[in-house]
């Protein structure tokens, strides 16, 4: 097996297993930490896909900023464990309504998506070369996509105002 294929399977396995554990946890702190592991594995996959820029911002922005924000909030709220009224040892598919539905839905979804997506005969292989450099991405971002980029700044401003507004304690009028 080629080293690249091996790396794909390793990263893919870490991403899937860590993600599964994220939703299997009842302690949100573990969930957040496991998700960071999953994001790290995805970052490795981006390197395999010749996308170093995305790989780096995946670590810096996702794992570094967004997940730390999550961790911060979990700790601020004193890590509330999930309350459950059902027996934890019961098999997931036998648990009450939404759980059964969710598990079933996920299985159907995974099967259906995989089936539909792999029915193409032709586009299975990547073309050689054609690596998008950071330079090319930056140039494209500030020329072709300058308009949505500017709208994004408003979006961030809205999020900032909103976060301050909603999270601050009452006291100011």
């Amino acid at each position, binding site marked *: 097996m080629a080293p690249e294929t091996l790396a794909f399977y390793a990263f893919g396995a870490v991403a*899937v297993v860590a993600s599964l554990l994220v*939703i299997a946890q009842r302690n949100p702190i573990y969930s957040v930490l496991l998700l960071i592991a999953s994001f790290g594995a995805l970052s490795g996959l*981006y390197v395999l896909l010749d996308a170093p820029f995305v790989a780096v911002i995946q670590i810096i922005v996702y794992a570094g900023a967004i997940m730390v924000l*999550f961790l911060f*909030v*979990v700790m601020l709220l004193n890590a509330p464990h999930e309350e459950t009224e059902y027996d934890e040892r019961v098999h997931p598919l036998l648990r009450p309504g*939404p759980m059964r539905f969710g*598990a079933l839905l996920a299985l159907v979804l995974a099967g259906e998506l995989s089936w539909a997506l792999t029915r193409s005969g032709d586009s299975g292989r990547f073309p050689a070369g054609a690596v998008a450099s950071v330079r090319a991405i930056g140039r494209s971002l500030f020329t072709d996509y300058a308009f949505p980029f500017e709208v994004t700044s408003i979006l*961030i401003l809205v999020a900032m105002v909103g*976060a301050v507004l909603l999270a601050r304690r009452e006291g100011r009028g």
Partner: protein
Amino acid sequence: MVPLNYYLVLSAMLFAIGTAGVFVRRNLITILLSIEIMLNAVNLTFVAFGRALGSADGQIIVFFVMTVAAAEAAVGLAIVIGLFRHRESLNPDSWTALKW
């Protein structure tokens, strides 16, 4: 090189895991994390397709998706903090003011 379809199947699996998490979990934080998993599956699809098409567009969309994810996470967590002040619980079943 690993074929495109492998990446697509992997992202489909991640997307399904995220979707399942939204339904299975009864904790707001974990539900938000599940939505992040879904968005990451989307990102993987975009990058894989972008690579297959030999264009930078896929990565640029990922840049935008990440921006949106960051904005949503900030607002979402602020809303969660606000809710937690009202009630010391993050279990959606404990909300009573509105019928779910």
